[in-house]
C-alpha cells in the first residue's frame, strides 16, 4: 500500500516537473535582432542565421587587456540584405539616413550609413555573434557591434536587439 502510494506520488511529481519544465521552455525566447525602418524588407536575425552568412573577424582587447577575437557579419552586408540604400544608391537625401543601434538595456548608438558601407570605407564594422569561437554569452549577446581600430569603445554596443534605419529630420 505504502509503496504504491509513493510510486504514485513520484510519478505524479515527475509529470508535474515535466510539465513545469516544458512550460519554462515554451516561454524562453530565442534572442534575435530585428532590422527595420527605411528598409525594403524587414529582417529578424538570430545568432545561428549569422553563422550562415559570410563571416569577418576582428580582434580586440577587453577591460583587463586580454585579447579576444569577435566574429560575425559585416554590418554593411546585413543592411544590404534588408535592402537599405547603400553603394551607388547612397547619395542625395539618402545621405541623411542613419542607423540606430539599440540594446536590450535601452542603450542607443547611431552610425551614418556611409560609415558602414564597404563601398565608402574599408574600416570594418561587424555585428558579432561569436567571441573566441563561442556564441556570445547572455550579458554580451545576442549580438555585439565591433568596430575595427576604434580607440574609445562605447560604440561597441553589447546585447544588440535592433537596428533601425531612419531619416534625420
Amino acid at each position, binding site marked *: 500500500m505504502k509503496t504504491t502510494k509513493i510510486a504514485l506520488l513520484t510519478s505524479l511529481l515527475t509529470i508535474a516537473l515535466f510539465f513545469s519544465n516544458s512550460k519554462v521552455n515554451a*516561454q*524562453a*525566447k530565442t*534572442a534575435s535582432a530585428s532590422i527595420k525602418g527605411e528598409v525594403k524588407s524587414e529582417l529578424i536575425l538570430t545568432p545561428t542565421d549569422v553563422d550562415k552568412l559570410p563571416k569577418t573577424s576582428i580582434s580586440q582587447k577587453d*577591460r*583587463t587587456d586580454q585579447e579576444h577575437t569577435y566574429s560575425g557579419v559585416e554590418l554593411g552586408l546585413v543592411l544590404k540584405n534588408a535592402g537599405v540604400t547603400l553603394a551607388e544608391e547612397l547619395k542625395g537625401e539618402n545621405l541623411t539616413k542613419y542607423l540606430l543601434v539599440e540594446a*536590450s*538595456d*535601452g*542603450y542607443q548608438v547611431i552610425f551614418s550609413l556611409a560609415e558602414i558601407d564597404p563601398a565608402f570605407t574599408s574600416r570594418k564594422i561587424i555585428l558579432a555573434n561569436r567571441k573566441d569561437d563561442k556564441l556570445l554569452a*547572455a*550579458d*554580451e549577446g545576442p549580438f555585439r557591434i565591433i568596430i575595427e581600430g576604434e580607440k574609445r569603445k562605447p560604440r561597441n554596443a*553589447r*546585447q544588440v536587439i535592433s537596428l533601425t534605419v531612419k531619416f534625420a529630420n
Partner: protein
Amino acid sequence: MNSFAKVITTLIGSFTLLIWVGKLDPAPYPLTYPSNFGNRISIPQNNPTTQAGVYLGRNLFYEPLLSANNKISCGSCHEQKRAFTDGKVFSSGVDGTLTSRNSMALVNLLWARRFFWDGRATGLEAQAAFPLSDPHEMGQALTVSAAKLRQSPKYPILFQKAFGDTAITVNRITMAISQFERTLISADSPYDRYLKNTYKPSPIELEGMRLFNTMPQPRKKIRGADCAHCHGGAKTYLELFHNNGLDEISTDKGIAAITGMDSDHGRFKIPTLRNIALTAPYMHDGRFNSLQQVLDHYSEHLKQKHLSPFLKGSSNKIGGTSLQLSAHEKKAVIAFLNMLTDTTFIHNPEFSNPNHP
C-alpha cells in the same frame, strides 16, 4: 466692394483670427534648464506646455476627486517635500491594498521617455492613465473622473483656459497632468551650482564625486565606485534598464515580465539620484532604509547571477565580485549624494498643492 464692407470683413476676419489664436496658443510656460541637461526632451506636438495647462494640471495632480474614494490624489504618493515620493516601502491606494513597487521620484521627467520601474509606459500622457484607473491606486475609470470634474464648480473654466473650451475629456485630464509634470525640473542642487562654478565642494564631497565618476582599476591602483556608469551625467539619469545585483532570483522579474527574455531578469529602470537623500526607502521594492545600506550593497553584496555587465567584476580588489569600498570611501560617496539635494525644488511654490498654500 465698398469701403464699409471692406472694414466689416476685415473686422470679422481679425476677430475670428483672434479667437482662433486665443484658442490654440495660450501663453507658453517657459521651461528653463541648464544647457548641460541637453535638449532631448519629450513634448508631444498636440500637447504644448502652457501656463493655463500647467495650472490645471497642478490642480488635477492634487485632486482627490480623481480617486474612487475621493481621498487619494497623485500627491498622496508623490509628496513635494520628499521630491515627490512618499517615504513608504509600498504605497496604499483606494482599496487599502499596497502597490507592488516603491513610489518613484517625479523629477526631470521632461527628459524621460519610458516610465515606471519596468519602463512599461511610453510618454507621460500614457503613464498618467495607469495610477488613475489602477484599482490599487486611485481606482476610478477616467470617464467617471471626467464626469465628476464636470460637476465641480472650478474645473470647466480651468479646462476652458487650458484648452479653449469647457469640454472635460479623458485625454485632456492626462494631457494637463503631463504638462504640470514636465515643469518639475530640479537643477539647483549644490552639484548643479558646482557645475556652474558657484559652489565650492568640501574635500569629502570632492572625494565622493571622484569615486562616483571613476571606474575601479585595482591593477593600476585606481580606486573608484563607478556609479556614473549608470547614474551619470548632469541629470544623474541615463535611461537604461539594468540588474544591480539585489537578488539571485528576483520575485519581481522587472522587464523580463514584459519581454520574456531571461537576460532581462530583474532588470529595472535606473532611477535618477537627484534628491536621493530625500527619497528613502530605496530600490523598486523599498528594501533599503538608508544610503549607508545602499553603499553596503554595492560594496559587498552584489548577487552575480543576473548582474549587469557594468557591475560584473567591477571591484577595487583584484578578482573581487563587489566594489569593496572602505568605510571612509562609502562616507565620501554619500557626501556626494547629499550634494544632489535641491531645496529650491522641494520648496518651489509652483509645484505645491494650490488648495493648501
